[in-house]
């Protein structure tokens, strides 16, 4: 018996070490470790009115997001306590009932967060960031639920199948299952995006091709998303895995920014693909999933374990709470990837002036936060603040004198 315990301790230690090593490996980026970002006063780059307007705008959204998260937690707490009774609404078996309860948990969250989402839309319209009508917004908000419902039902299908077979050890299989689901989602999402148009501006297309070749992702297509009548905030993104990888640029960015600034954006988004950031994010989530699934396994034992659908409401609550607790860590990881993409863009374009001007434009035209308070950084800081991004451009300039 003591020998078994010793083996268990050793295995746990080995697992924890492997976990730590994997997390450390994912944490590494190509941003120089000795890069010290200088501190700047936002007033050096932005007018007082711009700073005040963007800060006011972001403060409300930050508070709203925190309240929405709190409402989510309360809704799931109530559902954890009373949600199992909805099992009577199912004629499906064990897993089917679990899927229903998982989807109903999201339904509770949808209802609880509705006022906050509405408030955010109202605020965005007030600051002319969103041009979306309330009816269109409501339809869009309603439709968003569909993807989430599908995701949780698929996740519960896998997890409950594992938990039925291995009631105590299913949590070890949760991470690979999550990787499979997230990988499938990441792969298929670009194909589900409708109304994307090909990039017609020949100059920008040539820039994109040159940048992609230089980063070793030469076949990456670039699409344009029509945002006219929806929002004035500029944006772009990288999506997909393997053959489905692509860059999507919003048309308001192409229309309202200089070509040199657009080039920075393209280089940044291509860097997400060339540095494998999407796969890294999935891997990071899978790492987080291991302790979270372990905690879920321990906490749901009182309800018969996750093999029993009655435990699903509690499991959803626990997992959501854990994800909220881990949010600062998640945001820190996301910021590292964004910083790396910024750095790659700077190295490739060698244009800190355009970089600085781009980020000034994000504040002026998109009301991005020039700086954030600590709680905003923890709660909604998926990207570095604008001043930190400008500081990186200045740090790059210092290292690379003309």
């Amino acid at each position: 018996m003591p020998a078994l315990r010793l083996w268990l301790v050793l295995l746990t230690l080995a697992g924890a070490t492997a976990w730590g090593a994997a997390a450390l490996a994912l944490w590494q980026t190509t941003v120089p470790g000795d890069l010290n970002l200088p501190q700047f006063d936002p007033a050096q780059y932005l007018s007082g009115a711009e700073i005040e307007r963007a800060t006011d705008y972001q403060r409300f959204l930050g508070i709203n997001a925190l309240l929405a998260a709190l409402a989510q937690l309360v809704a799931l707490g109530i559902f954890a306590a009373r949600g199992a009774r909805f099992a009577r609404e199912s004629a499906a078996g064990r897993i089917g009932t679990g899927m229903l309860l998982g989807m109903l948990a999201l339904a509770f969250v949808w209802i609880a967060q509705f006022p906050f989402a509405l408030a955010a839309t109202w605020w965005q319209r007030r600051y002319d960031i969103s041009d979306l009508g309330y009816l269109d917004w409501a339809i869009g908000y309603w439709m968003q639920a569909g993807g989430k419902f599908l995701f949780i039902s698929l996740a519960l299908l896998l997890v409950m199948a594992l938990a039925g077979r291995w009631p105590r050890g299913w949590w070890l299989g949760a991470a690979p299952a999550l990787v499979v689901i997230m990988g499938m989602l990441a792969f298929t999402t670009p194909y589900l995006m409708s109304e994307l148009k090909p990039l017609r501006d020949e100059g920008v297309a040539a820039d994109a091709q040159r940048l992609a070749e230089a980063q070793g992702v030469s076949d990456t297509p670039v699409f344009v998303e029509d945002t006219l009548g929806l929002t004035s905030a500029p944006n772009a993104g990288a999506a997909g895995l393997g053959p489905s990888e692509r860059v999507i640029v919003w048309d308001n960015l192409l229309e309202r920014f200089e070509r040199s600034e657009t080039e920075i954006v393209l280089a940044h988004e291509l860097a997400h693909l060339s540095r494998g950031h999407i796969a890294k994010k999935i891997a990071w989530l899978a790492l987080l999933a291991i302790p979270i699934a372990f905690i879920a396994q321990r906490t749901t034992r009182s309800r018969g374990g996750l093999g029993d659908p009655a435990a699903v409401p509690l499991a959803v609550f626990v997992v959501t709470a854990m994800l909220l607790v881990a949010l600062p860590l998640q945001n820190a990881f996301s910021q590292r990837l964004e910083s790396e993409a910024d750095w790659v863009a700077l190295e490739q374009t060698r244009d800190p002036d355009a970089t600085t001007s781009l980020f000034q434009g994000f504040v002026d035209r998109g009301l991005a936060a020039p700086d954030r308070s600590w709680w905003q950084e923890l709660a909604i800081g998926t990207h570095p603040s604008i001043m930190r991004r400008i500081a990186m451009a200045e740090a790059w300039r210092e290292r690379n004198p003309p």
Partner: protein
Amino acid sequence: MDSRPAPSAAPAPTGLPARVLVDDDLRRSRLTVFFRFFLALPHLVFLALWSVMAVLIAGFNWFAILFTGRAVAHDLQARYVRYFAHVVAYLNLAANPFPGFAGEPGYAVDVEVAPGDRQSRLKTAFRLVLAIPALLLASMFGPSLGSGYFTLIAAAAFLAWFAALALGRMPQGLRDLIAYANGYLAQAGAYTLLLTDRYPSSDPLAARYGAPAPEHPVTITAEGSELRRSRLTVFFRFFLALPHLVWAFLWSIAVWLAVAANWFVTLARGRPAAPLHRFTARFLRYWIHLTAYLYLVANPFPGFAGRPGSYPINVSLPEPGRQSRWMTAFRAILAIPAMIVWSALANALGLVALLGWFTGVFAGRMPVGLRNLGVFALRYQAQFGAYLLLLTDRYPYSGPSLELPREREASKPG
């Protein structure tokens, strides 16, 4: 748990605005069928004139009921509703004799109109608003002229015209379907024209059909079906069904391959391969469960395997048996008339879901009439599916009377 009776056991609901009665021997004169529309023209002209008068009287009655609680000229308005039903039945081949112009009772497809009792002033004040759901449903049932889709009556009459010309008889299922829809139109008319404040019911079991429906190997029962609905699951019903829709799509790919293989097997052997038959039957049962859930005909989340007896809406499907090779060879073509009926019933089922969504979310219940209409549509879908997927060579029965308890229907006069 609601204990309202399920279709297979329910007595006909009482308290309806009007009730259809069928006393028809199904024989049709080919000559009058061929020229039916033209023969009905005098009636259509007279009906149009009488309709104007009926609307004017209804307008007057609106004030009369608000002041006195009672309508005037009830008998005249009841005659109008009856006459309307007679003309619809004649025009659409549900009845054979040329009807009279006075709306006298005793026609082959007739309606009983509720007596002229006192009416609620509140319900009268808002009658037109309250009538909207009933009128919406009536628009799915009534004769369609250029509406772009088949209503129940239009689909049935279109098919019946060919059948009656060829056979000299009206198919019983189509006759009963038209009679049922006609009965609902009469109910909606009686309610909207202020003859009564009883609300129309779309329950197919409320009508009195002439003869019991023939036996069919594909049946549906709703023994365990309740009328209570979970507001939360109704509100999110479409999204909750999404995993099922994905699964059904994947399963259906395999099913179509199985059906294609079974088509060859049935042509060669005169009977389907048992494993393929069972596989397809499982899918069809599952599909009915899923449709029942998605369209709010049933409340619980269904299982993913289509097991018999696992859902309140239970489908009974035949074991593999001999099938006509000719009917197998041309199954896809032969299924076209059934598909026309199904398309009309599918429209009605869509409206059942829409109206059921509102009552489910706000009242936490499904009206029994809507539920039973949904069960009828699902039964037809099951029979159509079984025919198309080669589970049986028995043609779908389009009459709504199949769900009536046989002993009760058989005991009726006429």
